[in-house]
């Protein structure tokens, strides 16, 4: 499920200035990062912007990757940082707008109204952000517990606990019939 067997080798070549390796990395990692952003209730347009911003940041701090270490947690740690920054900015903008206009809408809830919700976002919507990101990394991106712990700057025990709580909540939600599998993998 995870085509990242030689991401580490590509990353090492990218650090040496190999453009072909950089392009290959962008093509292979971007879909996963984009899905990560979408799973965090970010609108499609914002997810594309965040993806570009993430790659610019990755490029800027590429020297911090240690050859031989797992590359995927490194990518996800930076993407997560970008997402958190984006969330903070959104909150600040929302607070500013509320001060100007009491009738303005909260921008954090905007994605749900944008009509861009896909199966993953709908499925993970009942979960808090910290559980959503862990489930996305572990079950959708196919990372190991150790890698998720690295990407989220937490411990393996903490990741296990979040997964357990998320599954408990998902079981409850899915049993209640809020989600059912469609014919093309779409969740409705």
């Amino acid at each position: 499920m995870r085509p990242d067997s030689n991401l580490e080798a590509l990353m090492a070549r990218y650090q040496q200035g190999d453009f072909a390796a950089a392009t290959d990395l962008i093509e292979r990692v971007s879909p996963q990062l984009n899905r990560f952003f979408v799973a965090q209730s970010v609108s499609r347009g914002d997810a594309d912007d965040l993806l570009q911003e993430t790659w610019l940041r990755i490029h800027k701090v590429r020297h911090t990757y240690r050859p031989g270490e797992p590359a995927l947690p490194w990518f996800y740690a930076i993407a997560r940082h970008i997402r958190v920054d984006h969330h903070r900015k959104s909150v600040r903008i929302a607070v500013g707008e509320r001060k100007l206009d009491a009738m303005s809408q909260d921008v954090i809830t905007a994605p749900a109204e944008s009509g861009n919700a896909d199966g993953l976002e709908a499925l993970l919507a009942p979960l808090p952000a910290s559980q959503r990101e862990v489930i996305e990394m572990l079950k959708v991106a196919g990372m190991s517990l150790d890698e998720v712990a690295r990407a989220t700057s937490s411990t393996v025990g903490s990741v296990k606990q979040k997964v357990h709580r998320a599954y408990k909540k998902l079981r409850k939600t899915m049993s209640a019939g809020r989600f059912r599998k469609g014919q093309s993998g779409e969740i409705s």
Partner: protein
Amino acid sequence: MKDEDIDDVLNEVACAPHDLKPELLQHIADSIKPSLRPARLLPPTWVMTGSLVLACATVSLAGAARAGFFGFAKMDLLDRSLIFPALVVLACVTGSAFVHEMIPGSLRRVSPGALLGFGNAALLGLFALLFRDFRTDHFFSIGIVCLVTGFVHAIPAALLAWLLLRRGFAVNSVSAGLVAGTLGGLAGVGMLELHCPNFQTAHVLVWHAAVVPLSGAAGALVAWTLRFLPGSGAQGRTNPG
């Protein structure tokens, strides 16, 4: 509904084809091409940790050299052989944690908060074991001076640590600030142990040990405040070349 059913649903989502536009990926590749040069990699973790410990030791020794080694002279061999190695070990653990905070995707064995708590508990335990003078003469007047002296020495140590790791990238700047402050606090305590000849239990337990949490909190607060300044933060200071 079983866990396997949830796994099946998530697997279906994971296998669904992505709809990223090739033009977007090409645009990203084109945007990094002009500045694509070989990057100068970070030194090994042990080198960075060693540098941090050395920086802290330098600040402690320089401070004590300026103020006088009165505490060190008054200590017996047991005190010296327990307190200073313990401080070095704590500085090594905290330095290593700081290095990990500055490198994305590093495995975290202990959270910065737990590290601060553990460091403080270890110091309190050690001080309570070694210092058995239960008088409290001039508790506040002398104590405040020690706290300020320790904190004043924690600031340059924390700044030096941040400077040494400026090429890193703190994914969580508040955690990194907390660890840098804790490291600086240990340098401050080291200076106090070398300098302060007041071995009253209450004085050491309260005013000397308080330097570590105070510095840790100050580091976290500074990092949190810097988040709100445009163009600030670790990402603004990184340089791959």
